[in-house]
């Protein structure tokens, strides 16, 4: 089962874990992103996320379908938040259940790495004295 959600509400790990529960699962790996309090030593005040949501959901689904096939994932849940997030809040949760645990780690890491390359979501870091669109410039 593929569970993709992009929303403004707070994300919840248990919800993603429940979405991938399966009696045939031997391991579930979850990645939880959190807003760090600093970037290269500079204090971060907050983050703002925006997304081209229909395309972002489509790209997430492509990743989820690939993962399901390549690692025999039983279920995958990808939740991403948009809007304003404070330090410590959760922008992304990825949960993958597989029959054997090694696959769950690989599949989960592949998913977050690929999401960061292909899914149209943009993050602006707000500092005390300015703001930066993350990764926009070389």
């Amino acid at each position, binding site marked *: 089962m593929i569970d993709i959600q992009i929303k403004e509400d707070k994300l919840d790990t248990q919800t993603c874990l429940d979405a991938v529960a399966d009696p045939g699962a031997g391991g579930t790996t979850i990645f939880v*992103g959190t807003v760090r309090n600093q970037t290269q030593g500079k204090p971060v005040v907050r983050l703002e996320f925006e997304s081209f949501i*229909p395309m972002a959901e489509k790209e997430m689904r492509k990743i989820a379908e690939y993962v399901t096939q390549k690692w025999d994932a039983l279920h995958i849940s990808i939740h991403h938040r948009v809007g304003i997030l404070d330090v410590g809040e959760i922008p*992304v949760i990825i949960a993958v259940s597989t029959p054997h645990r090694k696959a769950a780690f690989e599949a989960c890491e592949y998913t977050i790495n690929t999401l960061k390359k*292909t899914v*149209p979501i*943009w*993050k602006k870091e707000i500092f005390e004295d300015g703001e930066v*669109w993350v*990764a*926009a410039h070389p």
Partner: protein
Amino acid sequence: MEIKLVAYGIAREIIGHSEMKMKVVDKITIGEFKKSIVGQYPEFGRLRDLRFAINEDYQNDDFVLTTNDEVVVIPPVSGG
């Protein structure tokens, strides 16, 4: 012909609008359109990359635009 340009993130800030109508030459490709928009807004040339989506899919440089296409400018993504 006319197309609709949609911009997110830093692209929106560079253009100054999240949506706008643009006149382009008939049968323009994404590659040609990219050159034209970088000429018009040089800040696009300084980005790490610049992609374009039509119908919620990334499209290659040789994709040919049709009148009323909704062209979404995708600056470097940074989700997660």
